[in-house]
């Protein structure tokens, strides 16, 4: 399960970041922020070759000593980033994909809310709930 889940706006500012409370929250912010380098690079590389036919799931962005960072980009260039503990070897690529898909669905629900202004940070309880379900349960 994830230790940090983030939603990043098209303009690369955070719309939502949630990490396990036991660890240094700031560190996850930095991890997510630096992973955008790879996301940007991947988006621009895909844009050149394939045009519209784009796989939303970007796969493993980069491994650090302690974490694995996965990325996903919606068609409107909103990015999802999931950080997983490196020691968690049981997690398969398929599971990560399905986590992203679930996240995307919930995100779509948030966007469908007529009271939500796209570009504002996400403050939805339903979204929170789904994200919590995907996070490592500590304690």
């Amino acid at each position, binding site marked *: 399960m994830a230790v940090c889940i983030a939603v990043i706006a098209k303009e690369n500012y955070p719309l939502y970041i949630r990490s396990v409370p036991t660890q240094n929250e700031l560190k996850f912010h930095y991890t997510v922020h630096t992973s955008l380098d*790879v996301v940007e690079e991947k988006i621009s590389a895909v844009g050149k070759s394939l045009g519209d036919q784009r796989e939303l799931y970007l796969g493993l962005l980069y491994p*650090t000593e302690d974490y694995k960072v996965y990325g996903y980009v919606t068609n409107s260039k909103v990015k999802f980033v999931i950080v997983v503990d490196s020691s968690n070897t049981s997690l398969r690529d398929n599971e990560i994909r399905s986590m992203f898909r679930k996240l995307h669905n919930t995100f779509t629900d948030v966007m469908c809310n007529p009271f939500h202004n796209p*570009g504002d940070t996400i403050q939805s309880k339903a979204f929170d709930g789904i994200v919590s379900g995907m996070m490592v349960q500590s304690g």
Partner: protein
Amino acid sequence: MMAGSQWELPPELCCRPMAFVALTGLDVVYNAVHRAIWDAFCANRRADRVPISFKVLPGDHEYPKCRTKRTSYEWYIPKGILKTGWMNKHLNLVPALVVLFYELDWDDPQWKEKQSECATKVEIVRTSLQGRNTKVAVVLIQKKTPLPPGEDLVASERAAALCNACDLSGKSLFVLPHTDHLVGYIIRLENAFYEHAQTYYYTEIRRVKSHKEFLNKTTHQLLFVRHQFKIAFFSELKQDTQNALKYYRTAYSLVHELRAHETNMLEIKTMAGFINYKICRLCFQHNTPLDAIAQFRKHIDLCKKKIGSAELAFEHSAWMSKQFQSFGELFDEAIKLGLTAIQTQNPGFYYQQAACYSQERKQLAQQLCQAGASPPSPDPLDTQSGGLDFYGQRPWRQGHQSIDPPDAEKEKTGILALQIKERDVPHSELIIALLSNAVAQFKKYKCPRMKSHLMVLMGEEYYHAKDYTKALKLLDYVMCDYRTERWWGLLTAILTTALRCAYLMASVKDYIIYCMELLGRASTLTEEQKGRIEKNIIKVLMNEVPDSEPECDPASVSAARLLWNDRMALAGSNEFTIEVQDYIPFIQCKAKFLSPSFHVDQPIQLQVFLQADCPHPVSLNKLAVSLSNQEYNQWCVLESSGQDSVSLLPRKTKCFNFSFVAKTEDVGKKIEMTGIEVMLGGDTGRCVFLSWRGAGGDAASTHEALQTSRSSRRWGRGVETRPVLDWHSVIMQHSTMIISRVPKILVQLSHQPPALINEMYCIGLTVKSQEEGVAKDLKLTAGLKPGQDANLGQTTHVTLNGSKVCDDTAPALLPDVPLGDLKPGEKLESCIYVKCVSTAPRVFLFHVAYSIDTTVDGRQIVCKCHKDETVTIETVVPFEVSVKFVSTKFEPLDRVAVDIPFLFMIDIVSSSPWPLLLASSSLQLLTMTSNTPQLQSQLQEVVLQTGECASECFCLRCPPLTNSNTTVATGQYLISWRRKPSSADSPLIQSTVTLPHVILESVPLYIHADLPSYGRVRESLPVRYHIENRTALVQEVEMAVEPSDAFMFSGLKQVRLRILPGSEQQMLYNYYPLMAGYQTLPQLNISLPRCPTTDTHTLRRFLPQRIFVKPQGRQLDDASIAAA
């Protein structure tokens, strides 16, 4: 040993091993020949030369002693894995080959003596190498060029003798002629040496391998590793890197099979690190970087958890850091040699991880190494030799291999000594160096955010190292990246560190800037924290020392306090101006002109909105707006002092209104806000001016405005419907136009379009004042509106005088025609005449300007007003004139015969929509003359409606030509006309039509007939033909009259006659018509035998063809007819 260098990899491990060959018998200092030989060996060793490291040694050099060979390993217990001196010994001390240089020619007179001297020298070398497999070779330096092999019998004989004497094989004796081709010989020599060296290392490998059978797995585990390492190293020396890699890999797996416990953990890790380094290095060298990376990952995974002694945990971090660093360096080196790295796999990640472990090392060191402990004496880290015997062992128990330390007390002091040593390590320096390496890499591989992150880490490390200036420099540099990307959490964290630095340096301005942003809306600090910061900022404004930042080192805090006291005591520099535009300050500012334009007779209004984001009210003492015209600045200042200072409540928008009267000179100009300044603090303490460029806004406001516009667009919520002023809905308007006062006059135009070409087209202008005061200095500018087609300017003429037709000097635009003053309600009329010489639509401008006195906000100003009226007028051609030449028989002529009358017809078709009055017309002839006594216009006072046609006809004759021109100009036709409905005094327009040229021809014979206009049946009809000879010759003419059914006739039926030049003959016929109606006259056949070009047909055209014959009248009427 240096503190930091304990973890450095030994240079003999990192270098590329090359076969070691010792050269003896060379005197490179005093002997020039020897020097040249030595230079040829060592200079210019490019990659294409064999990898050998040469060394010049004296002939009697003592090589390291070879220990006596062990015959059995049965009772042998190894003391460690690898001796520290071993690699160096084989790289630099024990040669694979010793070469003895000796000057000896084959024909040397003292051959015998020299031979034995040489043999002695060889013997000395051999003795020194006792027990080693090192080869010995002899090189004879000869002055003469050798003969081809086999030819010099003496040479081969003596060579054999020398080999025998020195106990050398023939392959080990070389000859080096000291001639021109020295380098060539040297290269051949060193290739031969290389072969010898390879054989040597091969035997060494065999020798080490042969030990294996004597070893057992229980006591000799260390030897397994050692032997594999040695075989691999010898393979490298032999340049057999594939096998070297294989043996290193075996060694690596063996090293992890060793029984690890706390006492030998360091040794195992050290050796594992060495072997791993070698493997990675060879993988990169073999261009298999993925193998290198995989090996390194495996290495890290295996060793990560092997921390060893908990009291020396920092050692493990230091070792880990070094592993990453050296792998990063290997990677980087491979890239320099042509490997391509990618964004997600580049040396930067390894440097970064190395830095990470160094940070961990620092933390562990801080935890484990208590300050104040005194170093034990004697120092347990000292060894007799000054170094260690084996890699990775403890100095106080070298060679000890059992699980428990031999002496617990010694172990304790040893650990303590290591901890004390660790205390002095400049950790921050190491971390910063690694981070900056990583930054350089990430910059190269397009990771701007990673780079920023590492720079933050560097800044923080500088902060820990108390180098606040450098820390601030780095943090300042990256702050703006986080601000533009709107990562507020990270920005707040960086600002917090920066604020600490600024506090500890007592840098007042920086301190205020960071406080401001931490209080601002982008900061993620809690209200409580913000409250504390706000209290501090107020203190600084009062010129007091702020409270210390939390989490600062107490010693630094007290130093900082002293600094602050000094700062506060210092007079002057109490004013700061802070450009806040690029930050997100705690006071937000937006300003707007209430309208994008103001009339000069209206006061200009602008509003400044301020909002404070800090938790407590903040008071400001001055608010000033600077405008592009600084004269207005005085009206846009709000100053207050002491008690009545303006207070901004948290998150409440406050609006300040300013208004001023624009100057009349500024009409048509733009007024911009160039800046807004808010002063915090006061005269008693410190003044801080927050300054915004333009109309306010800061680093975050653009995005906020965008978000607001999105939401309001969706909900249709306007500002009007909200009871409370919403900050986000305030839209900045940074400039306004000053435009002239609205004119209160009416300008009306009356005219009858379209205009006709050349006519004096009259446009009536009525100006009516609706002003309350007197409109002074009315001025009219009328005419063609500038900016149209340039040709129009030349074909349009405007004048005020309509009584006569204006000429070409009249301008296209009449500027500034004074019209006098106009009292309220008065009306003024005027006419403007326009003459257009070409057809085209034209835009005419009527610009009425005047000035008027008015009052704005109690100020008397003179306003200039103007009203523009434009009208588009089409110009059309009034009539078309067409002309034609016809004969007297009304037959169209394409050429005109000389001196023979013809008719000239003119048609005028009106195309004007208005009736035209043709006053008169006249024909001005050039060569032609009129056939009638005077030419009188037939069109006087004719009025033509649209589409109507007027025609004129003149009978003309062309006199005989004086020159030979066959075409002549006819002349001009002049028409005077004007528009019919216009008043009688409007001038007549003279239009001139240039008439076409006509082609002339001369005829030799002219014939014409006199006959009555009609005949009557059965009544005589006399016809007289006149035949003129127009040539200078006598013409013979044959004439015949053809019979006709309609006539009888009398006269000469056929005649032949002569006509003298210029004279005329007459022929009289009496025709007697037989039938009524139009009758063809009897045909006259004429031929000129002398002039064959002229025949009957050409002459016949001058003659009438038909005549009308009336029927026979009744008798009764005869009288009346006769009377008629």
